[in-house]
């Protein structure tokens, strides 16, 4: 019995030591998947066209409002603080703090496009807001900026994007959906929206937009979902 325990301890110890020695050596499958993930990120980025537009759809394509799923990671539906504003920062000439009214005074974009969720479903809605490229211009984003990070008040949910996808003409900060103000389940008062990324990249309940020289992962991305997640 004593010997058995010793052997068991030895095995446990070896297991822990191998894990500490690093996943790459102890788990060839994980190493392979990470390498292929990098390769696929290159493929996705090469396939992405900064000018190709997702087709705009007619009102008849709209998904019934109650059938369009909406997710958040907090236990309860997140509601914005009374003094809500959007901070724009990072490598910018002019860091900004924007109110919803400030955003609504900027050039408005309306689009009705198909949404693609990582789960496999699609749905259609109209979105109203301001291009992220307009925000970059207004803030004077530095040429060293390669990534844009979006942060939220949904328990710290965030995502970072490649600059090209963020500057896509259909990538917007949306304050409206289907002709009305954004409702809390879809990210009120302001969310990121774009038809060129999977849904989990389109951060709801926005608080910050940061123009950065490096990528900063994301809530789902850091758990194993693709970082580029282009559509």
């Amino acid at each position, binding site marked *: 019995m004593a010997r058995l325990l010793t052997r068991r301890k030895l095995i446990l110890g070896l297991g822990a030591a191998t894990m500490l020695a690093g996943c790459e050596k102890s788990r060839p499958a994980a190493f392979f998947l990470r390498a292929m993930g990098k390769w696929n990120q290159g493929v996705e980025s090469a*396939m992405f066209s900064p000018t*190709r537009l997702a*087709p705009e759809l007619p009102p008849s394509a709209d998904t019934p409002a109650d059938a369009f799923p909406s997710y958040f990671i907090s236990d309860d539906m997140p509601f914005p603080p009374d003094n809500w504003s959007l901070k724009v920062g990072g490598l910018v000439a002019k860091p900004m703090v924007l109110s919803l009214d400030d955003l609504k005074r900027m050039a408005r974009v309306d689009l009705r496009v198909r949404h693609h969720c990582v*789960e496999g*479903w699609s749905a259609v809605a109209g979105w109203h807001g301001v291009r992220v490229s307009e925000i970059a211009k207004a803030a004077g984003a530095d040429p060293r900026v390669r990534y844009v990070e979006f942060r939220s008040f949904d328990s710290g949910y965030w995502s970072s994007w490649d600059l090209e996808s963020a500057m896509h003409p259909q990538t917007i900060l949306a304050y409206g959906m289907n002709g009305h103000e954004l409702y809390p389940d879809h990210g009120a008062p302001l969310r990121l929206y774009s038809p060129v990324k999977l849904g989990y990249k389109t951060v709801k309940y926005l608080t910050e937009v940061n123009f950065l020289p490096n990528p900063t992962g994301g809530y789902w991305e850091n758990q194993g979902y693709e970082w580029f997640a*282009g559509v």
Partner: protein
Amino acid sequence: MAEASADPRWRKRKAQPLTIRLAHWINIPLLLIMAGSGLQIFSAYPALGPRGAQYAWYPLQGVSPPGWATFGGWLAGARNWHFALAWFLILNGLIYLVYFIASGEWRRRLFIPGRDTPGAIRMFAYYVRAIRQPPPMDFYNGLQRLAYTSVIVFALVEVLSGLAIYKPVQLWWLAAIFGGYDAARVVHLGALVLIVLFVIAHLVLVAMHPRAILEMFTGGKRG
């Protein structure tokens, strides 16, 4: 299975050349993991048709594939496996197809309707015991050619519909060929079903002709 052929082209070549044998065996683990990870991905939304307009004709809306048929553990894990191995499956398929065409193997493997339809019908009649004598065959019979050619078509459709649902905006024209994202998703699952049906029939038939299995290891006789 490889009868002596009058065509001198085949005299020096084994019934199953090395390239074809390698492609065949490499396919098996790749296809298993691709199918399993695909079904794990499907489990995240085990339905067909967009939100709010799911297709009425599909009888299994909301029914997840059984756990034993899935691979990858969870959605992200399955996606990582699926997108990693897809390239190796495509590469294996391309090597096979280039060899298939360049070596002339297509001549004795491809289903050519004018040549192979009568033989395929007679072979089918033989298998269902409508006739007693199998039709004469050369390298493959018509039914084999039909099956092995069909599965190449299924595989092509599987890859193309997969690319369409991978990038329905960047490859919008490909998605449009299939009738849009949600229709392409149907095609992607449908082609999997056809491939699985092929594999079942293939396994039953090679079990009835065990020499074919041996040939897929050794290459078989020349000529």
